[in-house]
């Protein structure tokens, strides 16, 4: 989905959605965004490598808890 930045009000980005409704986003989401820029929102499947790392960390932590 592509959102078009209509304006920036204080710390809020006011962006136009494809159906011409508007959504407020915290400016921290895209601090460099300016009026007229497009914010592109896309969905990606979770990174398998990252998932492996997280699961390994979980396993480690859960083992620790089990040890206690």
């Amino acid at each position, binding site marked *: 989905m592509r959102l*078009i930045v*209509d*304006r920036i*009000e*204080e710390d*809020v980005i*006011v962006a*136009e959605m*494809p159906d*011409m409704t*508007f959504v*407020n986003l915290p400016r921290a989401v895209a601090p460099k965004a300016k*009026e*007229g820029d497009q914010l592109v929102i896309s969905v990606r499947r979770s990174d398998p490598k990252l998932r492996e790392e997280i699961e390994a960390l979980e396993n480690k932590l859960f083992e620790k808890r089990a040890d206690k």
Partner: protein
Amino acid sequence: MSRTVPRKVSPWVVYLAVLLVFFVVCYAVWRKEHGGEGLLGTAPQYAYALPEERSAFVGEEGDALLRVTVLDVGQGDSALVELPDGKLMLVDAGDRDAGPKVRDWLLENSLTNIYCIVATHPHADHIGGFVDILKVIGTDLAYLPGRKSGATATTRVYKNFLKAMDKKNLTVRETYAGDYIVSNAVCVVKVLAPEAHVYEGLNNTSICLLVLFGKHKVLLTGDIETPSEKEILERFGDDFRGTTLLKVAHHGSKTSSCEEFLRVCEPDAAFISLGRDNEYHHPHPSLMKRLERWCGEIYRTDQEGTLTFISDGKQFEIQTAK
């Protein structure tokens, strides 16, 4: 072929007709004296938005009046300027949700014969409502900030607004500081901004209008911020010194209405157009302090609803809907 034969009219019919006319005239006079519109009157009514005290304006009957109505469109801007020479100007139209509301208000009050629309700048909270409004009003003239100021948006709302003007075959004039929208013996509408160079941010491309009538000055500022305010001060400072009414820029944002600007302007009254409990924290407390220092009365659409300034060129009155 038939012929019309004159018939003798009964004296009773004449007597009843005279009596009927007498009662109609009495009723018209009574309505006019009690705040209603006379049967033969054509003045617009604002019953749904304005208080009944409207009829108690200080000016004498028959005086030419300047009327500036800042409509309660939530978080956005829309103002109808009724000039004393009879011309109507619609300055901004609020956002898309406000469009039907402004359209209905114009229809209910028979204010659809508009001389021109003014889109101060292409942000959605100022131009979004125009598409609905253009479907019902009679106008063939639009003023937009000149493109040399960088006033081009890329939103679909802006594109639809341009399409609506194209469909209606409007004459669209690019506007810059120093232009006049109206200039005659009765009143003047002068453009104070934007200049013909690219600004940082669309707010600063806003068309800023100065309306002059008698001894009164009304300043409509769009969303100008400090960079534009400083340019206006430098070039037109003497023109708007001692303003009567200021439509506060950018809904009361802290980035507008700087100290130097307000010191010269020093308005008798200030209108702020903004939405109740808006997410942008308008009006900003620092701006309110500046306004309290330099302005007379301060009125807010989020608290008092639609706001109306009426002037006969000598005295003025302000009416609020709530």
